[in-house]
């Protein structure tokens, strides 16, 4: 009789999974870190880990389609003579002409204007297409100061001083040479075709005391008319928000690690910064401790996908949310109809993130004239407007179900958490319990 030793099923390592192995091979072959666009792809505690409680015996709901549930928000009420009035609490995040095609920027402006909200410039200045199509335009004041000039500053409806972004807090940017067209080069005052570095810190100030003086200068240049936002990447939200308020911000924008970028090192995107869910309560706490909650408005961004996500952010204390990647997807980014072309680039629809290479088949994250022409700005703008409308209806649906006639009346008491991590980060009880991990004397 022959003894048979049955083989075990081949088993892959959890630690050395397929992606990790491929990254080691890629690094060994090229000698350079991986650069890509987008935000963190790893699973982190997120809005999916929260649920709304809805009305019950102790609260009564409002009738959908019948009873009013207002969505408008005013930004910049602290110091600005001309605050911004938006119809919906969802804004379009800063994305540059250079990273995006002129058609994509125009489409964002069209869609946002139909929906009654704002768009934001990016690292590269303000284009006439964008200003022309955006009823409300926020002009970013970035470390690189590419294209910065006082005329555009005065044309803007608000100014956003960018300290950092969630995908890469503490990092600058790089626009690789293949995306530097004549027009991009001229706007940035650099030779065509070279890799353009965007500085990681501002050239003419350091620290919160200087920031206060910089904000004063911007207010003086624009005669105190424009709301001034301060945008930070989520790292130390309590202290950063407090310092932004101290420096004189009208609005604070906080961007979690799921927030996208046009191009950054993979190691930066996945390993620096904290999740969006983890930054909201400390940010709100800072505002409350200073007596400035609802006086300095808070905008939250990073991985907002649905009306449910937005409603949860509002319930945790945000005044508005901002979307970037979701807006690009609404325009047509990573659409399965380009699957064959994405396959030819070695990827698949939904995973394409080599935005820095400028070969986006959807015509969005590219400067290639032929590819850019694929995006119809009017149609894409309409798609974005539809998407924003759906998000807004979803926020209202949830708010009415919780008994609120204003989406800004959503509150932490409307929420519970599915996981311990989410309960601790959002500071709401674990579902079915009164336990908020990390908070002493929980209800």
């Amino acid at each position, binding site marked *: 009789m022959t003894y048979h030793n049955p083989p075990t099923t081949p088993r892959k390592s959890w630690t050395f999974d397929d992606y990790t192995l491929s990254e080691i091979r890629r690094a060994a072959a090229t000698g*350079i870190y991986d650069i890509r666009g987008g935000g963190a792809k790893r699973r982190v505690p997120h809005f999916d880990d929260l649920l709304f409680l809805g009305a019950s015996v102790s609260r009564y709901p409002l009738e959908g389609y019948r009873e009013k549930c207002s969505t408008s928000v005013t930004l910049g009420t602290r110091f600005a003579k001309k605050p911004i009035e938006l119809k919906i609490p969802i804004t379009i995040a800063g994305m540059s002409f250079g990273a995006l095609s002129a058609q994509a920027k125009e489409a964002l402006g069209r869609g946002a204007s139909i929906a009654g909200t704002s768009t934001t410039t990016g690292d590269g200045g303000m284009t006439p297409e964008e200003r022309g199509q955006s009823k409300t335009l926020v002009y970013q004041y970035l470390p690189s100061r590419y294209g910065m*000039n006082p005329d555009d500053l005065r044309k803007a409806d608000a100014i956003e001083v960018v300290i950092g972004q969630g995908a890469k807090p503490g990092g600058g940017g790089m626009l690789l040479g293949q995306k530097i067209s004549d027009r991009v080069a001229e706007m940035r005052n650099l030779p065509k075709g070279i890799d353009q570095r965007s500085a990681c810190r501002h*050239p003419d100030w350091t620290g919160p005391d200087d920031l206060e003086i910089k904000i004063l200068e911007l207010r*003086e240049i624009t*005669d105190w008319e424009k709301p001034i936002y301060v945008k930070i990447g989520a790292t130390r939200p309590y202290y950063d928000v407090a310092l932004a308020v101290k420096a004189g911000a009208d609005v604070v924008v906080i961007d979690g690690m799921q927030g996208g970028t046009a191009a950054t090192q993979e190691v930066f995107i996945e390993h620096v910064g904290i999740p969006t869910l983890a930054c909201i309560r400390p940010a709100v706490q800072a505002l409350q401790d200073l007596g400035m909650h609802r006086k300095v408005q808070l905008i939250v961004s990073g991985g907002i996908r649905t009306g449910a996500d937005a409603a949860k952010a509002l319930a945790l204390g945000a005044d508005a949310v901002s979307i970037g990647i979701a807006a690009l997807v609404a325009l047509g980014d990573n659409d399965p109809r380009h699957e064959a072309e994405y396959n030819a680039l070695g990827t698949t629809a939904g995973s394409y993130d080599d935005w820095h290479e400028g070969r986006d088949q959807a015509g969005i994250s590219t400067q290639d004239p032929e590819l850019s022409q694929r995006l119809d700005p009017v149609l894409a703008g309409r798609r974005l407007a539809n998407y924003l409308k759906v998000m807004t209806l979803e926020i209202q649906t949830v708010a009415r179900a919780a008994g609120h006639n204003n989406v800004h009346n959503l509150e932490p008491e409307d929420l519970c958490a599915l996981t311990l991590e989410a309960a601790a980060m959002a500071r709401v009880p674990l579902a079915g319990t009164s336990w908020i991990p990390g908070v002493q004397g929980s209800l």
Partner: protein
Amino acid sequence: MVEHFKMRTVDLAATPLRDLNADLHRQGDGSNETRWEVLNPRGAHAVAVGVDAPLAIDVRGSVGYYCAGMNKKAAITVHGSAGPGVAENMMSGTVVVKGDASQYAGATGRGGLLVVEGNASSRCGISMKGIDIVVKGSIGHMSAFMAQSGTLVVLGDAGDALGDSIYEARLFVRGKVKSLGADCIEKEMRDEHHALLAGLLDKAGVSGVATTEFTRYGSARKLYTFNIDNADAY
């Protein structure tokens, strides 16, 4: 015959800064109020920022941060010293500092001429994008960092890491350079450089100094395209 245009005097000891800047912003190209004098600046920040008219503004004393920031067309003279970021992001016009200038003088400037009659501190001309800067004294470390275009002229010495990560800006230094930054090298002075330098010295009111006394510095252009083999340069 040129009319005697009205001189406006604003005393910052009695007038809020906001009123001064708003008044300056109301002036257009055809303004009759072309001559302005600002008294008692006493180190105030953001004096005469965002001006967009061909005015002559004399600031009688020293100023704080960002004096003449984003200036267009105006000729602004600081009869004292200037704090950080004087003439930052200037678009056109002229700014003269009779004393010394602190950090970031002319930062990100896109046009016009900045003259510092004394010394300028660190990061002079950082990220400059077309501005011309003439410093009659010396400049501090990390000056012309990531300088994109324009010209920086220094009659004295330059500190450490001059022109680090420089793009297409031109640097002329008459004295010693403590060290050059990454990708910044000494370059040959050709006829066009002598002509450019002579023109700027003249505009800045410098006489009796020969262009042959200067050395030109600029980009080696080796770091223009990211290459992992250059990682040690940083």
